[in-house]
C-alpha cells in the first residue's frame, strides 16, 4: 500500500506545480517570454498571503481573492513597463531571458530588504492536520491546495475555451500573425496574458505559502523545477505543462521516499537533461524557430 500513499502525495503537490507551470507556459506560449522571474512573483504572493494572515488573520485560501487580482495587475504593469522596449529585438527570446533574470534579482533584493531573510511559513490549522483513510494519510493542507489548483485550472480552461478573450489568447499562441489578421488586438492580448500568467504564479504562491517555508532567495529552488515541468510538456503547451507537472511530481515523490529527500531536486534536473537530449521540444511542444 505504500506506493499508493506516495502516489497520492505526489499527485497532491502536482496540482500546485501545474498552476505554477501553466502560468509560465502561458507567458511563453503567447509572448515567447522565458520568464525566469516567475518564481519571484510566486514568492511575492506568498509574502502577501503571509502578511494578510499574520496581521489581518485572513485564511490563506481566502486570501486568493486578494493575491490573484493584485498579482494580475502587477503582471500587467511589469509587462507594460519592460517588454514593449525589447519588442523589436531580433533576439527577442534571448533578451527576455536576460531581462527576466534581472527582474528576478531586483525582486529578490527588494523582497530581502523589505521582508528580511527570515524563513516564513503561513500556519493555518489545516497546515499540520491530516485525514486518515484506512492506512492512507492525506495531509489537509495539500489536499485543499490540490482542490483549489484543480478549480483554478478548470477556470483557466473555461476562460481559454469559453470566452472571447480566451479565443484571442489561444489564437495569439498558435499564430501571432494570423491573430492579427483576424482582428485580435495582439498587444492587449499579450499584456492580459502576462497578467494572467503572473496571477497564476500568485495563486500558486498563496498555496505554497502554507506548504513550504520560504525566504526571498528560495525562488531559485523553484526555477529549475518549473523549467523541468514546462520543458517536459513542451514550452508553450498548457496540456503539456499539466502532464509534466503531475508526472514529475509523482516521480519526485517516489525518488524522495526511495532515495531520500536530498535526491528529490535531482529528479527535476535529470528530467530536464533527459528531455533535452531525447526530445528537446517536449511532449507537446513545437520546435522553436530560430
Amino acid at each position: 500500500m505504500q506506493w499508493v500513499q506516495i502516489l497520492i502525495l505526489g499527485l497532491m503537490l502536482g496540482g500546485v506545480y501545474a498552476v505554477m507551470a501553466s502560468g509560465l507556459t502561458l507567458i511563453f506560449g503567447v509572448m515567447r517570454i522565458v520568464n525566469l522571474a516567475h518564481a519571484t512573483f510566486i514568492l511575492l504572493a506568498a509574502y502577501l498571503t503571509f502578511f494578510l494572515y499574520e496581521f489581518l488573520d485572513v485564511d490563506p485560501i481566502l486570501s486568493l481573492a486578494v493575491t490573484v487580482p493584485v498579482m494580475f495587475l502587477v503582471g500587467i504593469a511589469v509587462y507594460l513597463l519592460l517588454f514593449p522596449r525589447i519588442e523589436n529585438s531580433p533576439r527577442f527570446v534571448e533578451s527576455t531571458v536576460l531581462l527576466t533574470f534581472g527582474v528576478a534579482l531586483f525582486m529578490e533584493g527588494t523582497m530581502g530588504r523589505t521582508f528580511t531573510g527570515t524563513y516564513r511559513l503561513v500556519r493555518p490549522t489545516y497546515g499540520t492536520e491530516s485525514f486518515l483513510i484506512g492506512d492512507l494519510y492525506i495531509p489537509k493542507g495539500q489536499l485543499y491546495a490540490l482542490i483549489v489548483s484543480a478549480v483554478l485550472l478548470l477556470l483557466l480552461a473555461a476562460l481559454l475555451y469559453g470566452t472571447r478573450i480566451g479565443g484571442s489568447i489561444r489564437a495569439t499562441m498558435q499564430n501571432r500573425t494570423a491573430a492579427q489578421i483576424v482582428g485580435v488586438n495582439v498587444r492587449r492580448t499579450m499584456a492580459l496574458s502576462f497578467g494572467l500568467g503572473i496571477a497564476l504564479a500568485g495563486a500558486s504562491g498563496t498555496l505554497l505559502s502554507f506548504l513550504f517555508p520560504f525566504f526571498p532567495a528560495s525562488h531559485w529552488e523553484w526555477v529549475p523545477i518549473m523549467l523541468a515541468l514546462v520543458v517536459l510538456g513542451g514550452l508553450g503547451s498548457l496540456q503539456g505543462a499539466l502532464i509534466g507537472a503531475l508526472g514529475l511530481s509523482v516521480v519526485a515523490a517516489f525518488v524522495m521516499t526511495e532515495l531520500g529527500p536530498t535526491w528529490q531536486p535531482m529528479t527535476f534536473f535529470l528530467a530536464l537533461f533527459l528531455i533535452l537530449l531525447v526530445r528537446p521540444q517536449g511532449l507537446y511542444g513545437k520546435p522553436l524557430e530560430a
Partner: protein
Amino acid sequence: MPLLQLEGVTAGYGSAPNIINGVDLEVEAAHSYCIIGPNGAGKSTLLRAICGVLHPRSGRVLLDGEDIGRLRPDQVLARGLCFVPSDRALFPAMTVRENLEMGAFLESDKRVIAERLERALEIFPVLRERATQRAGTLSGGQQQQVVLGRALMMEPRIIMIDEPSLGLAPQIAQQIFRTIASFADMGISVLLVEQNVRRGLNAAQSGIVLDLGRKVLEGPAGTILTDPRLRELYLGRQAEAAAGSGDDGRA
C-alpha cells in the same frame, strides 16, 4: 471617389532604406487588381503598408477618404480591409470550422457568424467535409482555402492576397485563382500579389506593375499582359530564358 486611395506612400522595415517609394494607387469597389513585379519590387511590402502591419513612412492611405495609415491591423480590418499573407497564417491546432469562425472574430452576433460560415462553406465545399479536422493537418491547397474562407468570414470590402499559389501544385493553384477571380463578382475588391504574371493577370481585371518600389505600369489586365513595356520592364532581364523554355512567365 475610389474606395481606397494611396498618395505617395513610402515604406520600409526598421532603419533600412525605403522598399516602396512614393506609390499612388486607386482601388475601385468590386474591382480586382493584380500587382506584379520582379522579386524585391515591393509588392508584399505595399500590401503590408496598407493593412496596418507596417506603417507608411510618408504619404497617405485613404479608405473612404479617411487616413488609415497609422491604425493598428485590427482597426484597419474593422473598416473592411483584410490581408491574406503568403505563409497561410492559420491556427494549426484549431479545427477548420474554428479557423473559419475566427475570421468573424470582430463580429459578436452568433447568427451572423453562422450565416457567414454557411456561405464560406458553399464557396469552399471541401472545407465542409473537413470541418472537424485540425487545420494544421490539411494539405497546402486546403489550407489556402481555409485562409481564403476565413478572409471571407470577415465580410471584407477589400481583400489583399499575397502569393496564394506559393508551394501549390499548378492544378490546385488554378482552382484557387478561379475562386479569387470570383470575389469581384461578390462585390469585394481584390488586390492580388503574384509572381506568376500570366496566372495572376488572368485572375484579375486590372494589372499594376511595380519595379524597385515604384509603380511603372497600370491598366486593364489583358492590355498589360501584351504590353511590350512589360516584357521590357519585367521580363527584360530573363526574356531569353523565359522565351526559350516556353516558361509561362514565372520570374
